[in-house]
């Protein structure tokens, strides 16, 4: 249904795309998640710099000359993408994140930098776009254009995959115990017959989306056992304070001190069902024993938590993929940020349990796809939801959206 609707709207859009005006700078998109807020900022390159109004300059300077903002904001410099072009302008994409619980500080900062003078609307996605809408309105006088988070995620994913050759990768020989697994680029473009695939976004929770074509997707499943569960449990069990600490602990730990393996129960393989002895039979299954609890180090507990959650997500994803008849699963979301171990575990689990029939794919900008998707809503004329796209009759975006929605209903 969605693809049918797309072709209609495409025609409609093309006939109307003559009168397009550029949105005012700065261009950024936001994804306000349960734990992290992600911000993607487009910095126009120098040759266009003279066009920038002066007041934009200090924001640009602030955002691009720092890697840390306040006490909690961070710019992921390694993800920075130069030479990206939007609407005929080329520039650099910057990727910034801060904890959603610091949203209030962010709003103060934006007020301080007079963001309101530059734009009266911000494109935002994620649940926080709803939750903080009234704060943006009352404290900044800005409205949020709330965008569907899964659609943003998919738009961001395809955008990156097409422009960044190394964006998408897989592990040809996944081995959870080897930290030097080879990463092989994987070509995922609209031209490369990339559909269908399953997108598994691991944020605080997990969303699983079956994608069959551009805008032809549906959320097929999800689980509340996600990145938030990992961090929450690790904080409780080890006293660590940050995701990075938790991952660092997990990398050093040994989950076999915590988990009960098949061989711990059956003395070896469970032959009747072909279960190998070294498989985990019960996560944390040793921890009811006082002695084993005393032996388990924080590293071991962190590792067991990571292994348990990663395998569980892998298992649900694999079930969904085979139920949907899909053989490619793309894992995204900030849980995989600097989390090599989970990448290896997921790649291995998908390969092992599907007997090689399902391939696990990963992306470099794992956590920023939604924010990027929301930026694209602002600047990409390919987007039907484009905020500044006006029709010949002078319809503003909202009128057009309303038309689209009515149109959807009719189909």
């Amino acid at each position, binding site marked *: 249904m969605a693809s049918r609707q797309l072709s209609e709207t495409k025609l409609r859009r093309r006939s109307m795309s003559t009168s397009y005006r550029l949105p005012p700078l700065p261009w950024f998109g936001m994804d306000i998640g349960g734990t992290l807020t992600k911000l993607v900022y487009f910095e126009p390159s120098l040759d266009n710099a003279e066009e920038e109004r002066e007041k934009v300059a200090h924001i640009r300077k602030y955002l691009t000359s720092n890697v840390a903002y306040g006490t909690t904001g961070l710019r992921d410099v390694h993800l920075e993408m130069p030479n990206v072009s939007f609407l005929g302008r080329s520039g650099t994409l910057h990727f910034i994140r801060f904890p959603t619980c610091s949203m209030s500080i962010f709003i103060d900062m934006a007020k301080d930098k007079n963001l309101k003078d530059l734009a009266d609307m911000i494109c935002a996605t994620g649940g926080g776009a709803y939750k903080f809408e009234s704060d943006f309105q009352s404290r900044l006088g800005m409205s949020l254009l709330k965008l569907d988070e899964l659609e943003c995620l998919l738009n961001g994913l395809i955008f990156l995959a097409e422009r960044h050759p190394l964006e998408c990768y897989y592990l040809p020989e996944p081995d959870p115990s080897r930290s030097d697994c080879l990463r092989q680029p994987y070509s995922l473009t609209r031209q490369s017959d990339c559909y269908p695939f399953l997108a598994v976004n691991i944020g605080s929770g997990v969303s699983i989306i079956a994608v069959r074509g551009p805008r032809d997707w549906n959320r097929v*499943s999800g689980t*509340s056992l996600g990145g*938030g*569960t990992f961090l*929450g449990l690790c904080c*409780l069990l080890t006293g660590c304070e940050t995701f990075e600490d938790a991952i660092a602990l997990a990398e050093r730990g040994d989950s076999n001190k915590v988990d009960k393996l098949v061989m711990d*129960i059956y003395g070896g393989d469970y032959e009747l069902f072909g279960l190998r002895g070294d*498989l985990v039979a019960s996560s*944390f299954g040793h921890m009811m024993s006082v002695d084993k609890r005393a032996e388990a180090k924080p590293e071991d507990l962190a590792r067991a938590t990571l292994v348990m959650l990663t395998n569980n997500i892998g298992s649900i994803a694999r*079930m969904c993929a085979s139920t949907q008849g899909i053989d490619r699963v793309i894992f995204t979301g900030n849980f995989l940020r600097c989390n090599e171990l989970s990448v290896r575990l997921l790649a291995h689990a998908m390969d092992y349990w599907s007997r090689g029939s399902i391939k696990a794919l990963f992306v470099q900008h794992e956590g920023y796809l939604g924010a990027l998707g929301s930026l694209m809503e602002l600047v990409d004329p390919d987007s039907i939801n484009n905020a500044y796209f006006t029709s010949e009759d002078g319809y503003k975006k909202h009128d057009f959206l309303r038309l689209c929605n009515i149109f959807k209903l009719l189909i």
Partner: protein
Amino acid sequence: NTSEYCSSIAISELSADVLRDLPTAQRFALDIGGSLSKIVYQSKRKWRKTFVVYDENTDSHLYSTQELEKEADCLHFIKFETRLLENCLDFIYDNLKGSDGRGLEILRNSPLRVTGGGAHKYRLAIEAKLGCVVEKEDEMTCLVRGCAFMLKHIPGELFSYEHDSSPPCCFADELSDGGEPFLLVNIGSGVSMLKVENETTFTRIGGTSLGGGTFWGLGSLLAGTSDFDELLEIASQGDHRNVDMLVGDIYGSESASSVHGLSADIIASSFGKASKADCKEFSKPDLLRSLLITVSNNIGQLAFLYASRHQLRRIVFAGFFIRGHLLTMRTLTYGVNFWSQGSVKAYFLRHEGYLGAIGAFVRGLEKDRRIGVLTGSWAENLCTSSSFDVGSWQGMAALELDKRKELTDFPLLRDRLDYVPDTWDLSQSCQQFQAAFQSARLNPPPSQDLSAREYWLNCFEASIDRHQQRAVLSQPDSPSATERGEAFRLAYQNFFKEARANPVAFGQLTVRRILDVQEHCLRESGFPDPFWVLKREENEVALDGLQSRLSHLASLPSADLPAALIRGLLGGNVFDWGAGRVAELLAEHGKQFGLNEAMEQLQPRPWLVDDLDAWTSRLKAGVYTCAIVFVDNSGCDLLLGVLPFAIDLLDRGVKVILAANHGPALNDVTIFELRALIRRVGSFVPRVADALSSGRLLLAGTGSSSPCLDLRYVSVEVADACRQEQVDLVVIEGMGRAVHTNLYAKFSCDCLKLAVLKNAWLADRLGGNLFSVICSFEPAAAAAVG
């Protein structure tokens, strides 16, 4: 000690009261778990049983009755803490050794089958203590066998968790016929998902390491205590919303529901609030509750995913993790419902803890080629088995199954899977019966008929004295009768106490169940047939009146005969000592109260349900080949009501099968009494003697010993006779068989249901008065359409 769940045996309690009949035990199987072990064994129980002796040459009485001790097979299930295993083995050894050591010899004849995680660990200890060979049995295989065994033999073994019902469980029998494959999810330390096709064929299609061990292990880490039941107890006091990140926390509670139509309470991220960034202190109850929900939700979701991938519509959850814990069952059910949107249903098992043990027992019999030991049907002994309490973690502590005749489905039920024997579910809401009532042309009872439960519990409890007296009087020569009468009272009273506190203590609470408990308590106290004297008296009085009744009927114009026979049958049905009001009338008027007096009590026509004309014209059409009549009371009912009706059918060329209970129940006639009575009748009614000798009149035992009739469990004898004789008319008479049960049973042939409502409350509920009449004729064709 919070380990109430198992009510397991403490060392001091390890006695002959707990491990009953041990000296006669024949076969054992063990399921050794991490904390709990279960043992199942088969023994020979001695029962007092009534035998009817018919002597044509005696004048003093129609027949005489003897009570003798008889042996019968019994399966015992006991659970105890694994740490007491060796004490238990010692106790078993001592008892088996007995005086001659024969018990031990029998035990050593075949290997002892052991399953469960501890099978390996305790193998040598068991072999050393008992001197027998131990054979390990695979856990999953035992589980599947055990599940099949329980589903086959125990009605209402399966139940679903219904949050909006009180108590929150709803009994079902959907899987007992073994038709459709289902998903069996065993939640032990880890989780295994088994696709079960039938009792021996299954495949492990998946699993997860997030299981009971994860709750236990992580819970121990979070709470600092390793007692599983304590962890559950702590979890039940918490609020997960303080620990989990909800949809409302991310979206803001208003937009979550208004924009997305999502409940703000849906968990977006388990433990999502527990990261240090929130700088909060978390309470143990909140953390454990969140953990319990995390684990059970996840299992529920995975179970749904596996079920839908394999096109299975039913999921049965088993394993130590559940332990009848309400929150666990609720979350598992929620997970399955949420993800399947109701297309897949979650079930639990009442005797879940014993699946492994009975499975190992069955496997042992299979391997020793002794599976014949299990032939027949096994029924819960409601007097000696512990009660079931959904939600209090008080699982079944003791279970005893008594061997009965082999029972099977009544072949003339229109739809076996649609058949619900009981008219009232006294344990909960009656909504499911509303439509059925309307189809039986009666006013449906109020949907949440709590007063019905109160009424029937009070009604039957008030009759304890009467039954105790009668029981003691039935054994005038026994010095222990008074003492055993007291034991009966205590046991039966205890049932009422438990049923009031917990209506599902013995499965679904129904009038039938209450009557079954009464019979079981009497039998257990050594009173196999308290009514035998009374029944004989009434039979003798009625027999004296038979000739004149037959003459009177013979004098009627043939057009009036069918109506007169029905009126006679209904009049006879008034003689019911189970009904308090009738018992009073009979006691008051004695022998003055005869069939004619009884017929005068009947409601004038039109009756509450009055199909007399339809029945009469159908009968006259002469279409029937063979009728089966399920008879009710002794005396006037059988001899002056049913028998003339049956003789008339025979006269019309219709074969007749009279079906009576095998075992005694109230003043209902038993097959043994029936045989004696019909032979006596034959001595002065040649038509009856002829019909009997020519095989046109057949007498069959139903296999039941209940005043009610559960047509899922009738004797093979009855089922075979129905097929062989091509029965095309089913006649069910009496309140127990046609009102409390089978009121809306549908048959594949014509059916005539006849009953007099001898209870004012019941009559009122059905829209009538005391002595209102139900004469419901349900032609097969109509039944097939409606």
